[in-house]
């Protein structure tokens, strides 16, 4: 339904987007994952029509987007730094886009849409409250609500959860998935948070320095990263990257091959080579160990009951891994 081909955008010396291809199916949630400066926001702004691409084409439902002004594209953008009108109630804030010139909705239709969106977002009880008397999470819901009432053809979300508390982010990301199911509208969700990407996406697009490095389902990108750079983008703690050595290399892996091993794929005991525990973090259901091993520092996720202190000796055993051919 939304399709980008070879989209490039340059700002002075910076190539913000380099020949980006992207497809978002009807009903699909695509997450664009990348660090600060990867080009994520430029990508969304280009889809919204706020930036003009230097090269490439964008189309939606077969129509060339270049022919449509931002207002005609029927996209809804939700930003990280949302702003509500402070003097207005939640209801007034949510009605605002529906009262824009060119919309011809009856009062009854406006009421129905606002209340429908509010109940979906669980802010029905806040409708008459001034927007200055909301918590951060409530404000972000209202900002999303303001986008929903428009019933756009696509939602573009730019790090909408980033400024919120960790705990709130966790519950809002679950709500986001449920919301998307209820709305049946495609979404492009931009974030630098790998947990948000893995847990919400139908497909993840990994973006780095304006270039798409890999596109795939969360499991594909997590389990079979195309490159070490992609591998480092997903997983917390990050994947261990090591040059295979004879003393510990998994069967069939040539010495010197670059190997990526997820921390949960190394057991602390049972391997051939000894290592020394440096840091132990009690994470609740598991423990995270930082171990000096094989000439490197590796992270290991150990079971909750694994007793270890800094200085202890362990024998890491490698389970699943990814190996990349050297360039």
């Amino acid at each position, binding site marked *: 339904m939304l399709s980008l081909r070879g989209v490039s955008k340059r700002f002075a010396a910076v190539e913000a987007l380099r020949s980006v291809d992207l497809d978002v199916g009807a009903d699909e949630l695509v997450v664009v994952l990348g660090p600060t400066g990867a080009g994520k926001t430029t990508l969304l702004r280009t889809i919204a029509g706020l930036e003009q691409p230097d090269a490439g084409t964008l189309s939606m439902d077969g129509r060339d987007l270049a022919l449509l002004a931002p207002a005609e594209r029927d996209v809804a953008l939700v930003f990280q730094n949302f702003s509500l009108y402070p003097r207005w109630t939640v209801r007034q804030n949510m009605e605002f886009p529906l009262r824009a010139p060119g919309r011809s909705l009856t009062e009854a239709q406006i009421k129905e849409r606002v209340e429908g969106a509010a109940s979906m977002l669980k802010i029905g009880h806040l409708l008459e409250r001034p927007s200055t008397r909301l918590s951060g999470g409530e404000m972000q819901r209202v900002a999303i609500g303001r986008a929903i009432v428009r019933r756009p053809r696509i939602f573009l979300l730019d790090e909408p959860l980033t400024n919120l*508390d960790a705990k709130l982010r966790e519950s809002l990301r679950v709500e986001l998935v449920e919301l998307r199911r209820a709305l049946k509208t495609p979404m492009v969700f931009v974030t630098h948070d790998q947990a948000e990407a893995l847990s919400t996406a139908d497909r993840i697009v990994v973006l780095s320095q304006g270039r798409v490095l890999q596109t795939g389902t969360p499991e594909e990108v997590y389990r079979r990263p195309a490159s070490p750079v992609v591998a480092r983008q997903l997983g917390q703690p990050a994947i261990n990257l090591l040059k295979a050595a004879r003393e510990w290399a998994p069967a069939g892996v040539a010495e010197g091959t670059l190997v990526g091993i997820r921390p949960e794929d190394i057991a602390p005991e049972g391997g051939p080579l000894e290592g020394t525990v440096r840091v132990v973090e009690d994470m609740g259901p598991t423990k995270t160990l930082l171990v000096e091993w094989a000439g490197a520092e590796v992270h290991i996720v150990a079971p909750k009951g694994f007793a270890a202190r800094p200085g202890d000796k362990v024998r890491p055993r490698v389970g699943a891994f990814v190996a990349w051919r050297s360039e």
Partner: protein
Amino acid sequence: MIELSKLEKTYPDGTRAVKGIDLSVTEGEFVVLLGPSGCGKTTTLRMIAGLELATGGTVRLGGQDVTRLRPSRRDVGMVFQFYALYPHMTVRQNIAFPLECVGAPDRDARVAEVAKRMGMEHLVALYPRQLSGGDQQRVALARSMVRRPRVWLMDEPLGTLDADQRQAMREFIRAQQIESKVTTIYVTHDQEEAMSLADRIVVMEAGVIAQIGTPAEVYDRPASLFVANFVGSPGMNLVREGDGTLGVRPEFVRVDPAGAIAGRVAMDEYLGSVRMIHVDTERGRIVMRSSEKRAAGESVRLSFDEGHVRRFDASGRAVC
């Protein structure tokens, strides 16, 4: 080493940010103040630093009552979320800056020592703009340590770093603290940071202390419903039972054909190393930690690992 006694902060508009808390931190301990925004954790830290004056109670550092002392007289090192290095000074000059003000004769030696211990000798001639975010924050940490303060205070120091750097900085801070043995108080809203860093966690809620304990105690035996939900990612499952509530962590829920609770899978939340299976049941939403995939819509029966069920009374306090 640090004694807070009935410490209070009421702002002129009547807001009671901190409502009379007691806390005793021993020499060399790493204590994390954890809670949501507005719980009073930052205000508490600022009162220890002297950046806010208490409206009631006392702050004692090393036996001395410092409640009314200016920040510069308290011998504390502070690190904030925004590192605020001086852009026109080199890393060496930035680290040395706190010593300029007190005129320490062994200034150069102390800067060199801190730079060496923190592994940033190769950075000392650079300017802040030439450093990554993580290295800038390391310099801010070094600057706060160069005076060898009695107490190290940190307010969300990892706030602006990305995930990869956060893990590295967490390990760096912990290693530095273990080596220097300086008593540390660290403020965060991120329970994962708190679990990974603390000797003891102080969970705060609405200006009061909800629980004090080691990470394992707070995680395994939360004192109240608030702590049960706030600590853990996701928080404890909470199920009404009679007047009270049962609490069980997602890793102690399992699919069990003979289980007492029937439900339907609402969502399979993939997190890479693990999955969180969200199940809607007649007792509410229950989240199960799992390595197996589950299709949304699937009917399942669940049971809890009895040895790990917590019980809370009608007022939300743990009863066992």
